[in-house]
């Protein structure tokens, strides 16, 4: 009997312990639910699941008799589902926020990339411009260098040419100077000879009167122009005339036989007139002077030699005898 009593006691204790265990689990479940619904992090999410879990737990409390293990399990299931639903809602919100951030970042990135691209394009354009300027500058420098080289080459060539021209000019000038000197020497010689010839003029007695003959050296060749040197040295002639101031003077022009009679007559007349004009210029009264061209009609030598022709080309100044 005592054994039965002890067995019964043990069974009662076991049943009571089991019931207390269930009650503890239920209380733990309730505490867990309370902590869960007061968590601000999950407050906005899983509201319907929270309501289901709350209803399940309250049903356990309202249940008559001992709480069943299965019912507790299912109530915990509802609590877990509510937690997961809240976590899911929280994650959805976080994902949405991150998506928004990512979208905003992507937009800003696109804008920044566009700005960077524009900047790099500007940089590239600037670099290209600089390179083009550099190329142009180098081209201009080369061109200048080439022009300078050409200029120097031209200057060198020109210098050579100018030098050669100057040398030629100097040579020509030298020749000119030599020729001029020679001409001057010849002129001096001629003048001197002319002066000597004029000084050596001598008068001769003829039937018409005293005659002084001027050779053709007094005139330019084939011309009636009296040479300047002859004009300057006409003193001998003037002295000769001055010795007979009361007498008439006849000036006869003569030529050689070269050329036509008319030409020679004209030339002899012009030469006689030229001497007359010179004498008048020296102060001889023109009324005293008669100038006659005789042509080739009165030669004093033959006209077959140059020497004879030279003697025939003459002007005779005749101081006529008084009538």
């Amino acid at each position, binding site marked *: *009997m005592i054994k039965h009593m002890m067995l019964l006691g043990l069974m009662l204790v076991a*049943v009571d312990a089991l019931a207390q265990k269930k009650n503890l689990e239920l209380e733990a479940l309730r505490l867990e639910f309370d902590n869960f619904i007061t968590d601000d992090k999950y407050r906005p999410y899983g509201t319907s699941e929270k309501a289901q879990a709350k209803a399940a737990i309250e049903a356990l409390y309202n249940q008559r008799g*001992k709480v069943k293990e299965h019912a507790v399990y299912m109530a915990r299931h509802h609590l877990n589902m509510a937690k*997961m639903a809240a976590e899911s809602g929280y*994650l959805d919100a*976080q994902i949405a926020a991150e998506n928004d*951030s*990512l979208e905003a*970042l992507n937009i800003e990135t696109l804008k920044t990339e566009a700005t960077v691209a524009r900047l790099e394009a500007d940089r590239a354009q600037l670099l290209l411009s600089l390179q083009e300027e550099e190329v142009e500058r180098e081209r201009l420098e080369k061109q200048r260098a080439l022009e300078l080289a050409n200029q120097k080459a031209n200057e060198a060539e020109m210098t050579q040419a100018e030098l050669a021209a100057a040398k030629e000019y100097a040579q020509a000038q030298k020749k000119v100077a030599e020729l001029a000197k020679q001409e001057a020497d010849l002129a001096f010689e001629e003048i001197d000879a002319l002066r000597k010839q004029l000084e050596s003029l001598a008068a001769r007695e003829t039937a018409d009167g005293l005659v002084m003959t001027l050779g053709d050296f007094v005139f330019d060749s084939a011309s009636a122009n009296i040479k300047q040197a002859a004009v300057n040295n006409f003193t001998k002639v003037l002295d000769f005339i001055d010795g007979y101031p009361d007498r008439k003077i006849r000036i006869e022009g003569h030529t050689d036989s070269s050329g036509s009679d008319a030409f020679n007559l004209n030339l002899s007349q012009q030469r006689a007139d030229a001497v007359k004009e010179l004498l008048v210029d020296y102060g001889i009264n023109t009324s005293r002077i008669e100038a006659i061209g005789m042509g080739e009609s009165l030669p004093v030598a033959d006209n077959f030699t140059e020497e004879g022709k030279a003697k025939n080309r003459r002007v005779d100044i005749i101081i006529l005898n008084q009538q």
Partner: protein
Amino acid sequence: MKPNIRLQTTKTGSLALILLILTGLSGCGSPGATKIDDDTFYQLEADVAAVANSAVADAAPLEIKGIQEKLQLAKKAKADRDRRTEAQLTEQIYADIQLAKKRAELKQKNNDLLDLRDQVSSAQVYLMELKERLQ
């Protein structure tokens, strides 16, 4: 002393009888919302296999392991013709499948969130580099 003992024995026996009745009643609770027929277990077995062969198994391996253990208990309850236990285990297994699926969904969302945060971080670094190039 004997009558006392007899009285005590009678009282003790009555108490034991009451306890036995209470114990029996506590063991014969409601079978749950799930109705059990001959095909219920096979449908449950197929549903568990489908979940175990899906991506959920990789995301929630502990939950799948518990489900498969409970499936064996349900199989035993079916064999024992313990319909109440089979019904409770069936309801719990479907609840566990629901939780496993939700766990997999949460894991996927966590991965998505981490991936997004990585993208945001990379985008911030890239944007910072771009802005430095602007300066």
